[in-house]
Every structure is written in C-alpha cells, then in structure tokens.
C-alpha cells in the first residue's frame, strides 16, 4: 500500500489542493489525515468520529487556504458543553494550496528576469508570445509552461482558473498583443494586472484602450506603468520592482521603507 507520505508527495507535485491534519498532543500525537477535495481521505487520527469531524473541518480550511490549530474532544466533540469536562485533542491543520500562477505576455529580456523572480516567490510561471522563435524553452528554461499563442487562446486555457492570488504581467510593448491581453485579463478574477511601458507608451495605450471601449473605471485594476518606483533600470531590477508591487497590492501596504514607518511589520 502506498504510504501517506508518498501520496502527499504525489498530490503536491500534481498541484492538487491538499491538506494534512495531525494530532499534536496526547496519546495519539502524530496521527495524520491526508485530505483533498473529491479524493478519498487517507490515514486516521486514532478515532473514527474524530477523523470524520476533523476531515470535514480540514476540507473547509483547505478551501479557505488557511492553516490553523483546532481543538476537539477525543471522539471529535466540538461544542463547548461537550468539551467542558473532557480532555482536548489539538489538531494542526495545514493547507497546501496550489502555487499561485503568473502569466507573462511577451517573450522579451524582461520576461526572463521576471520569470526567475516569480519562481523565487513560488509562482508557477507561464510565458506567452505569439512568435514561435521567441517563446522557446531554451530562452525561458525557468518557465513551467510556454505557450506560442495569442492572448485570447491563453485566456481560453487559463482564464477561468485565475484568482486573487495570481498575476498577469504584460511586457509586450506591442499594441497587437497588449490590448487584447489587457481585455482578456480584465475578464478574469486575477488579483494583479501589470502592463509595461514608458509613461508615453502608457498614454498612447490608454487611447487605444478607449477605442475598444475601455476607460477609467474599467482600467482601475491595471497597473501601468508596471512596478514600484524604486528607480529600476535593468531587467532584474525591474523584476524586483514588479514583484514588490504585486506583494504590496496583495497586502495593501504603501511600500515605504520600514525605517520611515511605525507599526507591525508582518
């Protein structure tokens, strides 16, 4: 029989949403459950009812992408009355959400640096360009996936899955490509949309976007010019500026130096 560890490794490598629940104290410390949506639960917490209740809660935590510790009675009791006179079992629930996804449009020098920085942050990276000679695994060995395709085709494949944790970065500088890429990205729930270009390019792009019916409110989600104002020049520095902006947008921070601010760091 396949071990719990081997099954965990298999599910994580397949990017299957997965969670582990483990008893962390008491006589059954170390007893472990492996839970994924629509897949059989594996393992046991030492008591059938406790396993059943904890598996249900673990699925809920996984769906919310949360990692937490929960308290149960020895047979999975959860109400305060049931727990009042009984020892409690602490169960640590760890959610392994699939890695976030960064879709980069444009197979240019900046793409290579951004893809490397995104891998550092744990993203699954897809590089897309309609030009077969540029979008190659040889040029982007760090990418998880390379698509020789137009934006419509890319969003037809990945659009539905893009969520708040994901990012679309449009580095093409080419109106044939970046306008449909912006249109496509805006139709998804992706958390970050950034578009490269100088302020001049950006102004011209706004005109073209207006021509296809996108203006003001529609474009509030689009970060352009892309990145934080850290004076980045090289592709590598620009990649850091973009990743910094993605993190700051997610956390809602103003991206100042900590030395000039007060309050909690994390």
């Amino acid at each position, binding site marked *: 029989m396949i071990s719990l560890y081997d099954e965990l490794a298999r599910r994580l490598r397949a990017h299957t949403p997965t969670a582990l629940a483990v008893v962390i104290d008491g006589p059954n410390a*170390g007893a472990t459950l492996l839970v994924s949506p629509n897949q059989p639960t594996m393992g046991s917490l030492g008591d059938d009812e406790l396993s059943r209740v904890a598996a249900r809660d673990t699925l809920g935590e996984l769906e919310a992408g949360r990692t937490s510790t929960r308290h149960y009675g020895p047979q999975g009791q959860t109400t305060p009355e049931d727990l009042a006179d009984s020892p409690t079992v602490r169960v640590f629930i760890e959610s392994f959400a699939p890695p976030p996804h960064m879709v980069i449009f444009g197979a240019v020098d900046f793409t290579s640096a951004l893809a490397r920085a995104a891998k550092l942050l744990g993203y699954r990276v897809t590089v897309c360009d309609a030009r077969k000679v540029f979008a190659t695994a040889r040029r982007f060995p760090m990418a998880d996936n390379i698509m020789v395709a137009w934006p419509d085709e890319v969003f037809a494949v990945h659009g539905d899955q893009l969520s708040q944790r994901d990012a679309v970065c449009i580095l093409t500088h080419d109106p044939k490509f970046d306008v449909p890429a912006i249109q496509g990205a805006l139709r998804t729930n992706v958390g970050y949309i950034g578009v490269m270009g100088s302020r001049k390019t950006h102004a011209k792009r706004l005109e073209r976007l207006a021509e296809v019916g996108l203006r003001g409110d529609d474009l509030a989600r689009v970060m352009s010019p892309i990145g934080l104002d850290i004076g980045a020049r090289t592709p590598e520095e620009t990649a850091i500026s973009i990743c910094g902006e993605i993190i700051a947008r997610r956390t809602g921070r103003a991206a100042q130096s900590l030395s000039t601010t007060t309050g909690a760091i994390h």
Partner: protein
Amino acid sequence: MRDLLDDLDRWRAAGKRCVVGRVVGIEGSGPREAGAAMAVNEDGEVVGSVSGGCVEGAVVAEALEMLREKDSARVVTFGYSDDEAFAVGLTCGGTIHLFLQELTW
C-alpha cells in the same frame, strides 16, 4: 513541506530516518508562518527552515535526540515568554511552537 519533498524522497530512498519539524503556532512577531518546515536526518543533514535562523540549531539537537531515543512526536516551544520555553529564543521576541515528528508515515 512542499519544498522538502525532493530531499525527503532522497533520504527515504537511502533508508535514512528523519524528523520533520513544522511551525504550528506563533505568538508575537515571527519571521515564518505556521506550516514552515524543516527536516533533519539521522546523519545530521538539515533542509528547510522554521525561523530566521534563530532556533534551527536547537531544533536539530531536539530532532537528533528524538531519533536517538525513538521519542514520540511532540510540540516544542522556543521563546522568552513561555514558562516551558527553552533557553533559545527568537531575536524578534516572539514565541514559536514547533511540532516535531519522526517521518514514519
């Protein structure tokens, strides 16, 4: 734990016993979130991390003792504010709870 898979696979293939330590709770300021993990094998090889480097040395010592004594899984706490705290703490002043377990499953 995702980041440890390749090394854990290698150790298991080589028949090396190992302990996995996972952050299960943080109080106050802490550099890593719950779920951060490290692993130590019987040869003292270490992968992963659970703090900014403040407690890893102590975790290795605990893990090796656990392997040597065939201890059952347990929670260990590092920090200044806890009565049962070990002498090692986080420089940021927080308290970190780790679940240590030999990987036998």
